[in-house]
């Protein structure tokens, strides 16, 4: 297990050891302050406040953002208190108003016998802390974790127990409109970087106690919150267990984005196709959950993963389900066409122009030949150059600072398009084909469009070498490859192969809602029925009959 992790030494105590129980390497503790998480787990608080504080300070040495606030309880010098929290991760107003104010000022100023050191902890907990979530612990490891998560830890002198006040609050982006997955009709909100908010977005859509959110922490250094979300009773138990299993396997130092997890849990790591779906739309995730799939949320990223993914989903879009079915079906077919174009557009062009002139009508052939007469390159090279130029433009468009966007689009459109044709470097028809291919690749799911972009080039080479035979062989090879793929054990080409006639209702076309009686057969097996029969609406019977 340990070989998955590069041994790392850092000064953050408790984070230096990849796995509890692993043998410590001699010389792994260059300084006394570096304590393994194993040791930390076993370390209990002492009754003496100063000893506790010294220990915590030693662990958080050189962490300038950790605040230690020592004060007296109810202006009584006998009872000392200390508050430890991380600046910027806790809600300052809450800490000062609800913890410190109530303990220092609002506590009754009675110097009676009741307020002894012995009873202080109970009194504080029961009567004096107006904090909604309060936990008690005597374990140093838990205290450290709580502080790092933004909680304020209250230490009471004379007690070997600390109170963890839930005061998490930090600067976070508010829920905004999705930037990458656009819709005309449908909810606008998108996930944010805070996992709790994301959970609430899902919970608001599915108000059901069966919506289960299992939390775990991944990443030995980052301790990132990860949640497995599913609907009990709808999701296949084996699938949920499999997801849990694969997540538990992960032993890595950091999880900064869902992509880390995706690469560590997918079935076919070397495939150009992505078999785990990612989205930033809560409505999409909710729909996936309702079909019996499992979602994985990761703290710190607005993307959620859902599994399993089927290939047909790359031409589907949440809006298909919000728009009327006839229109959605037509649009889906267009997307399918775009998918084919974005994979095969340039290679078909190369094959036809190079080998199969007879396929074109004579007039078209003549005009093509006239255009290409001046071009110095063979069709393959020409198309390759243009495709590369387009890829460069696309990448530049993504990364460039917003202020220079205008310049790049002018340069891209004018120089590479217009001027290249005028100069006789590139045939106008090539520009048309490449532009069409590029635009077509934006119409369907982004992760699928990446695969298509990638596979376009080898097929172009095949087309340039062997003509249509090469293209067909390329497509067949991709098809065979797709047939070998599985997403969490589910065949990737479902419902086409293995064929499931009922599920074709929601594949390349979408049947109206009243006709989609069942959940997808493979994932929704646990509870196949989605709705009552006979929901098809019809006008009321005519009057006077």
């Amino acid at each position: 297990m340990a070989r998955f992790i590069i041994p790392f030494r850092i000064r953050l105590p408790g984070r230096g050891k990849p796995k509890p129980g692993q043998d410590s390497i001699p010389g792994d503790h260059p300084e006394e302050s570096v304590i393994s998480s194993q040791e930390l787990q076993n370390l209990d608080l002492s009754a003496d406040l100063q000893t506790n504080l010294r220990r915590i300070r030693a662990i958080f040495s050189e962490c300038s953002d950790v605040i230690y606030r020592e004060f007296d309880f109810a202006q009584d010098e006998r009872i000392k208190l200390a508050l430890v929290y991380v600046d910027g991760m806790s809600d300052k107003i809450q800490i000062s108003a609800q913890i410190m104010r109530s303990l220092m000022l609002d506590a009754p100023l009675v110097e009676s016998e009741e307020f002894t050191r012995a009873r202080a902890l109970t009194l504080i907990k029961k009567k004096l802390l107006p904090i909604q979530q309060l936990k008690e612990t005597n374990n140093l490891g838990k205290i450290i974790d709580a502080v790092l998560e933004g909680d304020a830890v209250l230490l009471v002198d004379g007690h070997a127990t600390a109170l963890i006040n839930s005061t998490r609050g930090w600067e976070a982006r508010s829920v905004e409109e999705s930037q990458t997955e656009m819709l005309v009709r449908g909810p606008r909100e998108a996930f944010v970087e805070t996992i709790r908010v994301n959970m609430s977005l899902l919970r608001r859509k599915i108000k059901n106690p069966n919506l289960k959110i299992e939390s775990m922490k991944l990443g030995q250094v980052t301790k990132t919150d990860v949640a497995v979300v599913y609907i009990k009773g709808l999701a296949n138990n084996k699938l949920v267990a499999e997801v849990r299993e694969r997540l538990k396997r992960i032993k890595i130092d950091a999880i900064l984005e869902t992509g880390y997890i995706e690469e560590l849990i997918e079935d076919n790591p070397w495939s150009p196709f992505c078999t785990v779906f990612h989205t930033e739309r809560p409505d999409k995730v909710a729909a996936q959950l309702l079909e019996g799939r499992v979602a994985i949320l990761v703290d710190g990223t607005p993307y959620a993963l859902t599994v399993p993914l089927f290939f047909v989903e790359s031409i589907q879009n949440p809006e298909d389900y919000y728009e009327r079915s006839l229109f959605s079906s037509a649009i889906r077919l267009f997307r399918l066409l775009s998918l084919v174009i974005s994979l095969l557009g340039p290679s078909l062009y190369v094959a036809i122009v190079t080998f199969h002139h007879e396929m074109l009508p004579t007039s078209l052939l003549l005009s093509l030949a006239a255009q290409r007469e001046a071009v110095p390159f063979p069709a393959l090279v020409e198309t390759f150059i243009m495709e590369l130029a387009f890829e460069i433009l696309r990448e530049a468009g993504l990364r460039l600072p917003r202020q220079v966007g205008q310049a790049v689009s002018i340069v891209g459109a004018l120089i590479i398009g217009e001027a290249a044709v005028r100069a006789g470097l590139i045939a106008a028809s090539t520009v048309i084909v490449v532009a069409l291919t590029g635009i077509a690749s934006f119409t369907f799911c982004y992760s699928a469009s990446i695969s298509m972009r990638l596979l376009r080039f080898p097929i172009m080479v095949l087309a340039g070498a062997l003509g249509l035979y090469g293209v067909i062989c390329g497509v067949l090879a991709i098809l065979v490859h797709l047939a070998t793929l599985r997403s969490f054990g589910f065949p990737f080409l479902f419902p086409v192969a293995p064929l499931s006639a009922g599920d074709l209702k929601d594949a390349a076309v979408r049947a109206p809602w009243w006709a989609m009686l069942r959940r997808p057969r493979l994932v929704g097996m646990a509870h196949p029925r989605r709705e009552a029969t006979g929901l098809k609406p019809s006008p009321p019977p005519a009057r006077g009959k």
Partner: protein
Amino acid sequence: MVGMVLPTAFLFVTAGTSRLARQDGWISVLLATFVALLIARLVVSLSLRFPGKTLFQFPEVILGKWPGKVVALLYIWWYIHANAEIIREFGSFLAAAFMPETPLIVFELLIMVIAAYAVRNGLEVFTRVNEIILPLILGVVIILNILATQEMNLKKLLPVFEYGAVPVIKGAVMPAVWMGQIVTMAVLIPSLNKAREAHRIAATATSITGFFILLVIISDLATFGPQVNAGWFFPGLNKIRMIHLANFLERLDPVVMAIWVAGGLVKISVFYWAAVLGSAQWLELEDYRPLVLPVGAILLALSIMAHDSIMDLFVFLGTYMGPYSLTIFEAGLPFLLLVVAVLRGQGGARP
């Protein structure tokens, strides 16, 4: 799931063959379908007697160890040889019809690489591929034939039985050979989900195949008449070349190429898989994957060396393949095995 493999596999190879019976070719096909149905019945009955055992395993049970091994070896040879012929045919068609200057080996190598990839990943993979390809192919064949109706004249099918029954029977041999490859069911049945339905699957597959071959041969004959057909290697292709649609769809032969390559892939994969699986079972290996590459190399080499030219190939297919394949491997040996099994009372109680 698995049963769908067969129709494609046997579908397109016939397009350019079977001209012996002249305008009565369609009767030959009917006859051949009938023969193939008998073979299917025979093979499935035999196979169902030995559940879980393939064609390469049950001869041992029936005939004893060494004779059984010999029969299994013969079948492995047949699969390798037949597949080499198929690959050769596949490449020859592409080379002759589309790209005459490209060496044969280029076509064959490329398709073999894909087939090897599919075979290595197992039966499930290429049956899934087939599940996608098959409806497309069947659809395209029907559409192409409908588009070509303009050129057809059913009177060219007349007169019936101009030369008597003998040429019809001779003509039936070749399609029967192709459809008789349903004998592969004996290898597939142990992998079927629903082995009990094997009879139905085999019969359906054979009938669909027969129907499509019939369709193709009738439309070929109706378009060109028997004399022209007999003179061409690939009359089906020439028929498609005659389609003109809306001044735009001028030449649809690349479509023919697409279905040929796709169907060819599945067919080659099935036979390839059978040969590899057979060899593994013959050698009593646990995993057949180490054999994929060696068998592939043999197939490729054999397909190149087997014939000097496309003429040689056609003569061979027309004259020798019939008696060789049909009488020995598709009908003869299974029949013999069934008889012995029944006489010795081996296998399940169901006949």
